[in-house]
């Protein structure tokens, strides 16, 4: 089995690693790049815990081969906070207690980020359907939705103030 040399951009940094052909992007992030913030909950694309953003698209990293990341821009949870400052979504999640065990949280934050980039003013229903691919077993989603909608409002305000 020969490995494939992959070069990509992860959270703004150029990276390279060796991937076996069958390795998923999730495995590569966790095992080759030591970015363990992205989680495996099911390995079959049904829980969203492995969500990352690739070339601006929200995807399940367990459903992508590591080799497919060649030349692509990948954003993971580790890149959400910038310069020691939490992103408004992260702050609102904490403020609203939108996490309990925290395992689904990285995937949810990435999904929420992608939501607000695609639709800065979602209704509660739109947000629920967008986030349906992220399973949470602890919270019942109530506080997650409140946090996301609150962050959306704050981001809209910041944009109009700017």
């Amino acid at each position, binding site marked *: 089995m020969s490995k494939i040399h992959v070069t990509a951009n992860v959270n703004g940094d150029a990276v390279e690693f060796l991937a076996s052909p069958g390795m998923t992007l999730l495995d590569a992030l966790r095992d080759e790049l030591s970015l363990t913030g992205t989680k495996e909950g099911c390995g079959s694309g049904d829980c969203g815990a492995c969500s990352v953003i690739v070339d601006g698209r929200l995807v399940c990293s*367990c459903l992508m081969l590591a080799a497919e990341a060649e030349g692509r821009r990948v954003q993971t949870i580790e890149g959400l906070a910038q310069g020691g400052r939490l992103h408004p979504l992260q702050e609102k999640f904490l403020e609203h207690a939108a996490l309990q065990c925290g395992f689904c949280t990285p995937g949810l934050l990435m*999904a929420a980020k992608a939501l607000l980039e695609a639709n800065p003013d979602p209704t509660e229903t739109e947000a629920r*359907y967008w986030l*349906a*691919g*992220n399973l949470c077993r602890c919270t019942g989603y109530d506080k997650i939705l409140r946090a996301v909608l609150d962050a959306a409002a704050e981001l809209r305000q910041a944009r109009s103030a700017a």
Partner: protein
Amino acid sequence: MSQLAYIAPTDSQDAVRALSADGARPLGGGTDLLVQLRAGRAKPRAIVDLKRLPGLVGIREESGGFVIGAATSGAEIGEHPSLRTAWPGVVEAANLIGSTQVQGRATLAGNLCNASPAADSVPALVAARAVCVILGPQGRRETLVEALPVAPGRTSLQPGEFVLEFRLPPRPPRSADAYLRLIPRTEMDIAVVGAAVSLTLDADGAVSAAELALGAVAPTVLRVEAGGGALVGSRLDEAALEALATAARAACRPISDKRGTAEYRTKIAGVLARRAALIAYERAGGQR
């Protein structure tokens, strides 16, 4: 897994050659293939990633119709304004596949060629009379979408063949389509039943052409000609809708499995056919 090779050709002839080899599988979005790999249900020798081939990703308008690259993601399909206007049913069907994350990768070709009886985009494409353009060792050929799935998990593609693009025909005025599916939750489930209706109205608002296609009620997608026929000439009055539902139920050959009983599926096929017809009718500007 240790024998597995990954190839990402940039030339279509290289792709044909790679796919002609024994144990080669094409890769589009990977949302079915990777699940099967992980579960040990698929054990390919080579994975041929088609996404870097010219024309495989992207949507264009051509000769009044649309050409959708076989490896275009559901998300991209959902964002295309004129496609959404002309074919709301095809777009909503494609956008029902999986989660937002799956939408970021899933492709029409993958959904079709995975040949699940419950594939969401297929009934809508069949009702739309969509055509797929196939490339293979014998060159290019075109065929209606419904000719591809032959059994659960099997298509009529020959070794080395792959789908290049989908073509949607030009749309007469006062045309619209719709796709509905029944799932136990609100999202994330495989369709228990899927129903697609496409219709065209004449100047008086009566149906001049109609198509009904059903998913998840037979080993492959069903084009229900009697269903479409039941609507022609009508303004979707109760009798026409009942005839449509009857035709839908009569066409079903479902199984009972962990997602639904055969009896249930048959009943629901009738219900969804009616509801999809009403939505398509309203979209097309019809008034009952």
